[in-house]
């Protein structure tokens, strides 16, 4: 079981949090801080598993994380999950984001937290892995987006237009900070 999925940046700012077990909001923030503290002090060339984290889990739980450019993707899992499997799953998730957002960068996650959630929901459900096949995930996400668009129809048009205008003057968004080399792979892991 996956107990929590956290995405935060190099400064510990949360970009997505998904707990599969209830924690009150302040506890959630504390967990994020603790996890960031644990993860951020590790070099990039050490292993991606981390025991401990007193707030979340216990002896049966592990933090499995990956660091892409400015973002940390942290999964807290128990012993029923395969460590390398989860590492791969993170990779699948990030690659899916890359496909859905077309060259994903941190800003996509910042401004479209809801969409990231919808994508994640096709990968993990209720703490259990739902789908590991990237094409299937992307297909489902796109079908749902298409449905949303068709529902929007005419009444959604003005809002979309306004939003497009608003986005037009966004000089501060540099599109080129992408998430970094997402092709780092665990050696000799065959894709699912």
């Amino acid at each position, binding site marked *: 079981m996956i107990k929590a999925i956290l995405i935060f940046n190099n400064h510990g700012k949360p970009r997505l949090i998904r707990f599969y077990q209830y924690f009150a909001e302040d506890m959630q923030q504390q967990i994020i801080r603790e996890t960031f503290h644990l993860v951020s002090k590790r070099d990039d060339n050490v292993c991606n598993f981390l025991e401990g984290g007193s707030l979340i889990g216990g002896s049966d739980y592990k933090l499995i994380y990956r660091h892409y450019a400015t973002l940390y993707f942290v999964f807290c899992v128990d012993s029923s999950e395969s460590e390398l499997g989860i590492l791969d799953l993170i990779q699948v998730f990030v690659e899916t984001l890359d496909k859905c957002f077309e060259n994903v960068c941190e800003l996509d996650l910042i*401004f479209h937290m809801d969409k990231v959630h*919808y994508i994640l929901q096709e990968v993990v459900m209720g703490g259990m892995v739902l789908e590991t096949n990237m094409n299937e995930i992307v297909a489902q996400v796109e079908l749902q987006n298409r449905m949303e668009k068709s529902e929007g129809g005419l009444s959604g048009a003005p809002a979309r237009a306004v939003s497009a205008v608003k986005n037009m003057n966004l000089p501060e968004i540099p599109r080129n900070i992408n998430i970094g080399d997402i092709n780092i792979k665990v050696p000799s892991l065959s894709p699912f």
Partner: protein
Amino acid sequence: MALKIVKGSIDRMFDKNLQDLVRGIRNHKEDEAKYISTCIDEIKQELKQDNIAVKANAVCKLTYLQMLGYDVSWAAFNIVEVMSSSKFTFKRIGYLAASQCFHEGTDVIMLTTNQIRKDLSSPNQYDTGVALTGLSCFVTPDLARDLANDIMTLMSHTKPYIRKKAVLIMYKVFLKYPESLRPAFPRLKEKLEDPDPGVQSAAVNVICELARRNPKNYLSLAPLFFKLMTSSTNNWVLIKIIKLFGALTPLEPRLGKKLIEPLTNLIHSTSAMSLLYECVNTVIAVLISLSSGMPNHSASIQLCVQKLRILIEDSDQNLKYLGLLAMSKILKTHPKSVQSHKDLILQCLDDKDESIRLRALDLLYGMVSKKNLMEIVKKLMLHVDKAEGTTYRDELLTKIIDICSQSNYQYITNFEWYISILVELTRLEGTRHGHLIASQMLDVAIRVKAIRGFAVAQMATLLDNAHLLTGNTQRNGICEVLYAAAWICGEFSEHLEDPMQTLEAMLRPKVATLPGHIQAVYVQNAAKLFATVLQKHEGETDSQAAQETSQLLIDRLPLFVQSANLEVQERASCILQLVKYIQKLQQKNVEVAEEVTALFAGELNPVAPKAQKKVPIPEGLDLDAWINEPPSESESEDEKPKAVFAKEEPKHYRSRNTEVDEKELARRREVRKQEQANNPFYIKASPSSQKVYDAPGVEHIPVVQIDLSVPLKVPGMPMSDQYLKLEEERQQKEKAERKKKEKKKKREKRGKGRKADSGPESEEDITPAQHVDIVTEEMPENALPSDDDDKDPNDPHRALDIDLDKPLADSEKLPVRTHRPEVLKSPAEDRVSESVPPETKKKSSKEKKEKKKDKEKDRKRSKEEKKKKKKHKEVEEELLESQPEEPVQSEETKEAAAPPTSTSAEASDLDFWLSSAPVPPAAQEVTVPSSAVETSSAAVPESEPDEPKDTEPEDTKSSKHKKKKQKKEKEEKEKKKKKRHHHHHHHGEAGGEDSVQNGTVEEEEPLPPMSNYSVLAENSFIKMVYDIQGNHQDESKVVVSIIFENKSDSFLKSMEFNVLDSLNSKLQRPEGAGPHDGLTVPFQLPPGVSNEARFVFSVQSIVMPQKLKGTLTFIVKSDESSTHEKLDFKLHFTCTSYLITTPCYSDAYAKLLESGDLKGSSLRLEGINMPFHHLLARICFHHHFSVVERIDSCASMYSRSIQGHHVCLLVKTSDQTVSIDAKCDEPSLLGNVLDELKQTFSKC
């Protein structure tokens, strides 16, 4: 209207959307909180609008704010509103918000049930999908119960997208509503072979998750999983299955044998590291499970270790980490194979990655031997010095202590070395583990007698240099060590070289800065030292020195008398007075030393940590009984000040108890020993430990070879190293000696916990430097051996420990979709059911107890209603085959309809599969006939578990070979089983279940078996017993169940049942039948067999009991002849039979009584000498009541008639007299019920 919509959407253009909010927050970095609070105000405004799009937008923003740590639960209702929007776009936003912030305590969740149900059955698969995803995050026990059936239906949805989600969410449903597991399991199992790989993977996922917690229930799935493992190509699925096998093998070693080969193949063939790693892990699990039985799997171990070595040597840190992790599993059973890789592991200790270092440390724990302990610890000590960062250093420290103290100090050959290590560890700055070191010092000094002299010397030095430890306030953790040092010096002061110096050290003014509990030990042990010093001086007749010592104490102790710490103060003032008195005596030249030492005489034995827990409660001692009756409430107020004081004192005790009171304990123990010695009934413990100590042969152990001129070091200088050298020399010397002598001395076993032959053989030659007399820990006599207190009673998975192989009972089914689960309509009769009693209506209100009752009620009721409900919904199709629609229903058909997954078939399948040749497809083919044979006797399943398992495969095999003789035998066996089964039916099932339902069983003595069936009529051919029960659905119908038992040797057929209707009660006959026609009993009875039939009667008034005359006609057919027979009977409809067990909650009950609509009556029963809970159980069982509340020997009970009369009882008992006060809205009914109650108890 249209204008309004347009206006709404134009307004919306200028609302902030999520992107605007994010942008705004980013632009207000300085006053973020303020900005967000204005945004929240805006959101609140938006939520007030009618436009759902505006609301959804607001909710979306809230979801973002929730991530930033803002509590948004205040908007829960709005979230529900958005969830129920008909548009997918908004629905999705709503469900996302709900999944982020709803939890079991969110009360609006109750409102979502119907909305979720609607979405689940939506024609749009994405509506369903979004609802499932959301539900998976916030499912509650209520939702799980109400929706389980809907979700189960979705498991067979046409779209794989929905199927896989439905399958996955079932796990959450099981967790919240364990009763759903058994009914849903067959379908879940089906999904393992779903054509869609995603669904398959989800099913594997769920079953693995279930099986991980309760593996034994899933053993029977092993063949199926084995097939999947050999056929699947999905690595994710393979990993899960292989992990599952890892959990199953410990339970079934034969499974392990079967697995080794395919797993080894996978290890060789796969290119995926993740899969390889899990294979290795499972092979290890298999090897562990086989370790006792099969010695020749060394090839597999070698393969694993070799693969792991490759992983550890890999440059990828992840693989290194996992390699070490898996290695530690092998270590437990095959330490030797791992020990050969010691170099590699020690190398990992130097790794820059802390995770890896920690793993390597874990491994070290298992790799030490007597030979290498010192070396390894030396290396660790080096790391301690180097380590920066206290966490890792503390980890090292605990590991060193763990390693050394493991299995009762098994690997320590030289305790002097160990003590020096401990002393060296005290130099660590800022460690949290001072108490750990201290307890080790105490433990070693107490339990290893030979080391005491050395330990005392070291501790004295420590005390002398206490300023080094306490100088820095940051090093506070370590001053705990002084606690141990002071105690050891005091307790074993006879070993001190210069007690006077130590005494002085302990009374330095600086001591007053130490924590209170340490000071207390100082003071107490100063007194012990004082006694020793006195004795010494008096021995030398140096009265001058003795008096000086007394003076020293008198000078220094006042400092402690002023201490703010109560314990210190008390001890100090006691001792001060004592010393003053002694001084007086000394001035008169009286010899006091002996008397003073007597104060502290006595030997101390260590007590096992669990000893206290294991003291059995003596017979006849009731710990819950009051010693003095508690004062009434009014009194207690006056006594409040007293109570406060009394409360505070134990608190004080607790904090000291564990640490300080050792001396106190010793004293008490001494007193107890004295008492015991005087008590002729007390069996004294044999002083075995002393014996070993004095045993001959001790002298031969080369204690002398250690040059005790090993200087007493000033702490701060590492000294443990020299032991390493010494040890080497000693070992060499010993070897040489031994060679010369060629004499083998048998080592005696020391200490209980030590395993003589656990280490490698070469170790046997190492004799310890000291005679290590490890005193075994004391346990109370009659200690209870078992302690199962490791299990966490709160683990939700405990509830899922359910036997899945048993066939489904009729009562087990998911609540079917209805408005209120209690009100189960009977569509067959197309009646509008009457409303439930008011108290059950509000069942949605919390309290688990209530739910439980509901469930129980459902279960019970469903027994009767099965036949009516059965056409109701899809579940039924699964559970039951179609049955005749007539009101008469036979038990036979029910049983035949049980799903074919009978225990026996499963069990034999598994056995067969495990014992057969390793070709899986062949094995499975063979099992088909065997299961067919088994299912032919489908009526037997319940008695099956009684059969010894081992006979099963034989049976199936023999039947396969069709040897007639054996077949015959088997048939006989089945017959027997059948008989047993029926016996079981009346008593076990009916009695047991009902009594449990009423909640009276608790932990009291077991109830005698009860049966509601009473004899209807009997002759030489047939016996009829019957029971009458009503149900809520129909206020004018009761069901009479009659069991017909054939007592003759002939066949009974053409049974016809008829009664003479009265005006009030009529037998329901099928349409078209005349009012006097009999009903055919739908079965025939072979000799010795019994079966049950049910007949429905309609009644009008239920306030009076009724008797109906009737006849049963049947044909007795034997080999030569057949005769018509007839049996008359009288059906007695008691008023009780119109009552239905209905749970009632105490508040509703109270209201009912207050309402004043009920009329009372009462009853007294004399000479009842059965336990109260039996009495209650009887009332519940025979008269269909339920207990509302029970307080001691008083209980309130409730029942309800089929026509809605409330019957309340208040049952009180004292000395064989039972008084029952009853209330009911119908006095004559009440009177009759009371009469019947009286009758029930007059019978016994």
